[in-house]
């Protein structure tokens, strides 16, 4: 099986020879560590820039517990539960990966196959959950108004303190509103799908319904509502709504109903980059899984390839631990 071209440098410590291994690590393992260290720096760059944006808008950053509150198939408000489940799935698939590596050291082919299989399943569940989380985040929940200054105004029911969705109070006005298309534009641009309500309809509905109040992005610093978002009274609300520009439903890279638009940008970017790592990890694990079944490593005499892929897989888990903390907990 050994098809490597001999270069005559095997005797040299740093020559890449298989016998003389610098720092006790084989060439492939060393290169995997090089990759992991540089990838760790990439991720820390992302998370550090997220922290930058968050420090900059420390008083008005969205509260993660109010954004990620859904569980598939259940209605209601369950912050953190689903992410905790995802974290556990990923840690669990890390465990099956270590078990696969351990079985590989003992040359137990069948155990390696089964543990690799469970690892792939765990990774698939995680990616699926991630996709569901994205879909929920993009679809949005309550809807909000974006002001001329790019701030988000959300709505709350005054009596219960619960969030009010636009559909609960906006008054349909049946105004003429045609989707802009780029064939009618002066310059080349079109328009995405219109939101369910126009700004006018939301404001008319707000005026007609005295039970609705506006909630701004600012976090209260003192008093009873400390740590919550600021609630305006009726007259302050109307004053703030005078600056309305858009109706926002859900989130994309430009508008975001949950608050600061940078929050959605970083959410898509960081969890997306991590999700892509998980996806490639699953694909590589599948390749290795089939190689194990075909007996490639049995013939090679060692299962080091499983170990190297395992390193990557654990790294993905390691990154998620940090993303979990900085996106959902802190």
């Amino acid at each position: 099986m050994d098809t490597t071209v001999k270069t005559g440098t095997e005797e040299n410590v740093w020559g890449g020879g298989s016998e003389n291994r610098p720092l006790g690590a084989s060439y492939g393992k060393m290169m995997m560590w090089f990759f992991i260290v540089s990838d760790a720096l990439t991720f820390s760059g992302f998370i550090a820039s997220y922290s930058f944006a968050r420090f900059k808008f420390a008083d008005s950053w969205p509260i993660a517990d109010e954004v990620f509150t859904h569980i598939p198939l259940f209605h209601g408000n369950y912050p953190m539960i689903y992410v905790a489940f995802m974290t556990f799935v990923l840690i669990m698939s890390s465990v099956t990966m270590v078990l696969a590596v351990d079985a590989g050291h003992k040359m137990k082919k069948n155990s390696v196959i089964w543990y690799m299989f469970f690892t792939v399943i765990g990774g698939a569940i995680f990616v699926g959950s991630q996709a569901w989380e994205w879909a929920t985040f993009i679809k949005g929940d309550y809807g909000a108004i974006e002001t001329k200054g790019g701030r988000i105004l959300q709505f709350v029911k005054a009596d219960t303190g619960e969030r009010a969705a636009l559909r609960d109070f906006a008054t349909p006005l049946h105004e003429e509103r045609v989707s802009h298309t780029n064939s009618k534009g002066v310059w080349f641009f079109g328009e995405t799908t219109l939101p369910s309500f126009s700004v006018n309809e939301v404001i008319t509905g707000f005026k007609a319904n005295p039970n609705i109040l506006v909630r701004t992005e600012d976090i209260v610093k003192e008093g009873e509502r400390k740590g919550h978002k600021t609630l305006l009274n009726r007259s302050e609300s109307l004053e703030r709504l005078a600056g309305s520009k858009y109706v926002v439903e859900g989130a994309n890279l430009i508008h975001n109903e949950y608050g600061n638009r940078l929050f959605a940008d970083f959410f898509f970017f960081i969890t997306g980059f991590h999700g892509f790592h998980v996806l490639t990890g699953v694909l590589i694990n599948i390749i290795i899984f089939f190689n194990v079944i075909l007996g490639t490593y049995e013939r090679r005499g060692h299962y080091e390839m499983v170990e190297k892929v395992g390193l990557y897989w654990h790294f993905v888990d390691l990154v998620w631990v940090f993303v979990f903390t900085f996106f959902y907990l802190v």
Partner: protein
Amino acid sequence: MAHEHKLEIFRGRWKFKNNIQKIWGVLLFLTIVTAVEVVLGIYKPEMFMSPFIAPFEPGFFGSTMNVVLSPFIYMKPLNLIFIVLTLIKAYYIAWDFMHLRDETKGLRRAIVWTPVFLIAYLVFILLAEAGYIYDILGSEFVKWNF
């Protein structure tokens, strides 16, 4: 590929008979830490919501202490707890799952200290700058919240 495994965690306080038992032990520990994080994150105990120490008066001594003790002065203790628990989890993932515990000391140090040093520096400069920009935004010099 005979591998030597070091079979104890918590500086030898918890010893295992074989590598597989150690893996399950580490999983148990990581699960407990995650559960603690989730419970703290949902209930947010009031005692952890405001910093333990008030900032010192500016001056040579006060400003130095503000920098040295900044995690306890400017951070909610809850967030500090989360970050410490995360680093603990990261340690056990790297040491036992990525089996850095069994690698040579040189490889381990090269892998750990290079990013730690670079990340600490990156985070320091970015957060110092972000704090400055936060002050500018709060000083009404720029109108952004309208």
